[in-house]
């Protein structure tokens, strides 16, 4: 158990070191998140939409979380594509210890860049879709702490699911498109929970309903991580 934890941390540290060195993961994830915000921003911010304050919260929530879900998929795919370059993946799988630890390590390595991207995407999205304005116009302050919690839980859930599918698609052709396509349906509960929590937070600040959604999200995160750790060995072994 302690050995597995050490392995997970070793893998994560390595991935973070490489990510800091080449920065390509960060770039790719930011690129995809940026496209989503850009297109949706232009499509929805003209005409009727921008004039209707009630719409700003659901639209901002939807756009932000679609962007982050995609960014998670891209980040996870990178994490495994990197391994595969130069045959390192086969070498990684040949180390002793449970393969589940490798999944956890990969997940821990994927998370920090994603959280970084999220830290930019969320405020940008709120401004772009006029949600932050609508909130301050209503005389409230933006609930930053609650938003940050939602974001962290949401990104963790996205990363957990996409990292798992990343291990499956890495050896397949067409993996770039396949990974998001496979992972998204599974992400639907997480998208739903994050979108609703964000929307409610924007519309009225903290409420017990938000708490319910966040509890659900936490359960989703834990469930996904446990299940993925259990199934990962079967997905990758020789």
């Amino acid at each position, binding site marked *: 158990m302690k050995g597995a934890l050490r392995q997970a941390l070793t893998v994560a540290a390595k991935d973070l070191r490489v990510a800091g060195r080449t920065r390509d993961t960060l770039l790719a994830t930011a690129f995809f998140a940026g496209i989503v915000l850009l297109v949706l921003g232009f499509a929805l911010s003209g005409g009727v939409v921008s004039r209707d304050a009630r719409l700003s919260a659901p639209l901002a929530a939807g756009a932000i979380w679609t962007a982050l879900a995609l960014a998670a998929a891209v980040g996870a795919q990178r994490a495994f594509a990197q391994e595969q370059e130069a045959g390192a993946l086969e070498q990684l799988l040949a180390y002793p210890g449970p393969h589940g630890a490798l999944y956890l390590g990969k997940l821990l390595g994927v998370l920090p860049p994603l959280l970084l991207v999220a830290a930019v995407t969320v405020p940008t999205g709120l401004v772009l879709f006029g949600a932050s304005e609508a909130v301050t116009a209503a005389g409230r302050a933006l609930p930053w702490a609650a938003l940050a919690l939602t974001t962290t839980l949401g990104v963790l859930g996205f990363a957990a699911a996409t990292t798992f599918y990343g291990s499956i698609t890495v050896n397949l052709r067409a993996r770039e498109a396949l990974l998001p396509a496979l992972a998204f349906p599974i992400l639907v509960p997480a998208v739903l929970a994050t979108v609703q929590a964000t929307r409610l937070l924007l519309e009225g600040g903290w409420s017990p309903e938000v708490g319910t959604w966040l509890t659900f999200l936490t359960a989703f995160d834990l469930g996904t991580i446990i299940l993925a750790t259990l199934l990962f060995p079967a997905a990758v*072994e020789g």
Partner: protein
Amino acid sequence: MKESDPGAAFAVQLRDVWLRLGREVILRGVTLDVPAGQGVTLLGENGAGKTTLLRLLSAGLRPTRGEGRVLGFDLRDSRAVRDAIHLMPVDGGLYPDLTAAENLAFALRMHARAGDVPGTLRRVGLEGAATRRARFLSAGMRKRLALARAHLLARPVTLVDEPFANLDDAGRALVQELLLELRGQGCSLLIAAHEPALAQVVAPRTLRLAGGLLREEVPA
């Protein structure tokens, strides 16, 4: 973590192993016994299946039919096998964006072992490239780095795929020296190579893979 099964008299045992990859049948009934501590040179034409056989032994591939054991552990018990074995692949299997020293340190930490990274780098002549990324090493330097890793890890069963390719004369002598040291520590070696003369110095017993079958080769 067990270092090895101390009761195991055999490093490797294969019984009528068949292996199919895609639509090709690569191994067609391979049977092999390697006593613990022995050194074996594996010869065979290009495409004979040497690399495939080594991957099978390192639990990277599963036999389609037949059985195998490494240090007494069933090949299907991948965790135990991976604990006992190390495969040095042809292309090194290094992380291109980690430096030479980081690559070694990573391998050691994954095995929960300590080791003298700078010292080993010096032995393989890479002290000047310790902080260079593996991506920017020359072909021979990458091979030396992979060799340094195998030597540091010193697993009880060490599989080596084409250790002499891409190396200069000094590098080849170095491979022999380091592999002999490993044998001196009691490791069993399986070396796939196209240079029988060089490999047999380290691993005298010689086998030839042809047509998916393994035959003993008597030195001329």
